[in-house]
């Protein structure tokens, strides 16, 4: 198990022109580390980060899309793995930060903390799937996360972060979406 924020700091240090899609607690950690127009915050409906990412991957094939999902979030849209496995975007990496809880909603456990996300991804024909438990293992996977032909799926086992109210108001501002469109010339 690792500290999610430390893992995200390692990823942030390697990011260049990728579009990073994040959601809930992972998003609040991400935005505290790195501000950039190419950040996309999945808002409006829990669970859809990977669906937003899939649309972005198809819309912007010249860019790598990296989705920073949560385990509670992914469970709300688990069939997304089947859709992604079928569409198979080559520029797509889906990371689920697994802490076994709905951290953003009070830290309640997910229905089954023993769920095998990597196994689900493989069963959905996302063959490039892995699980990492330590910061060193995550660091070793960074090239793969950033450059391996997709779709890539990674389950990153992390410790539970701070439970408590987090503000999403700033990250959900329309100005951020406009900035992303401008950066992409869309």
């Amino acid at each position, binding site marked *: 198990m690792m500290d999610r924020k430390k893992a995200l700091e390692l990823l942030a240090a390697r990011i260049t022109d990728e579009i990073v899609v994040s959601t809930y607690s992972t998003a609040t950690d991400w935005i505290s580390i790195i501000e950039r127009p190419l950040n996309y915050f999945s*808002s*409006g*409906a829990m669970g859809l980060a990977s*669906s937003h990412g899939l*649309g972005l991957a*198809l*819309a912007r094939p010249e860019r790598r899309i990296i989705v920073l999902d949560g385990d509670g979030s992914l469970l709300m849209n688990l069939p997304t793995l089947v*859709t992604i496995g079928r569409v198979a975007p080559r520029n797509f990496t889906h990371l689920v930060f697994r802490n076994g809880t709905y951290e953003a909603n009070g830290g309640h456990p997910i229905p089954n903390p023993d769920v095998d996300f990597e196994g689900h991804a493989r069963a959905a024909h996302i063959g490039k799937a892995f699980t990492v438990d330590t910061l060193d293992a995550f660091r070793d996977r960074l090239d793969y996360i950033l450059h391996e032909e997709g779709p890539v799926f990674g389950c990153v086992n992390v410790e539970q972060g701070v439970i408590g109210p987090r503000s999403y108001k700033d990250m959900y501002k329309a100005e951020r*979406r406009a900035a992303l469109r401008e950066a992409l010339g*869309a």
Partner: protein
Amino acid sequence: MNAPSTQPPGKLRGATVINEIKKAGVGYILSVPDLHTSTGLLRPLSVDPDFKHIRVCKEDECLGIAAGLTYGNIRSLMLVQYTGFLYAMNAIRGVAIEQKLPICMMIGMLGKEPGVPPQESRRFGLRIIEPILDVLGIQRTCIETDADAPRISAAIDEAWRTSRPTAILIGGRPEA
């Protein structure tokens, strides 16, 4: 809001609907199968080389995918049954409406009586669709026959011009 044509109920051909979708410049079809549009619309759309087709597992996926596609200015059409529209309500609220995105929903009105306006249907699930759309503030039009079909491309163009979602109710069952 456009009223559907009423008397007499004419035919709605799938080819007419598809021509309108093409006219509107739609590139992606995002679908969950619906018996109402299955033969006349979804099957021909799924093999038409002018479209990329993604079969999703559940309707709310469409909202995320369609939102992402807008970042490449790619028009998509979500093709679902009215029950799927109801299922995806929170995503429609949170993604399409609150983010002011031009998400275009084509909604099959399975079981609607030919020529009968949706709000006068005997089926509860169909009667509530237009009032729900009105509460949500989503523009809507109902396509009953070929004569209504020009509203399809107009609705999609308007959605993109105003960056707002739109709902195209397929009242008549499209013929192959």
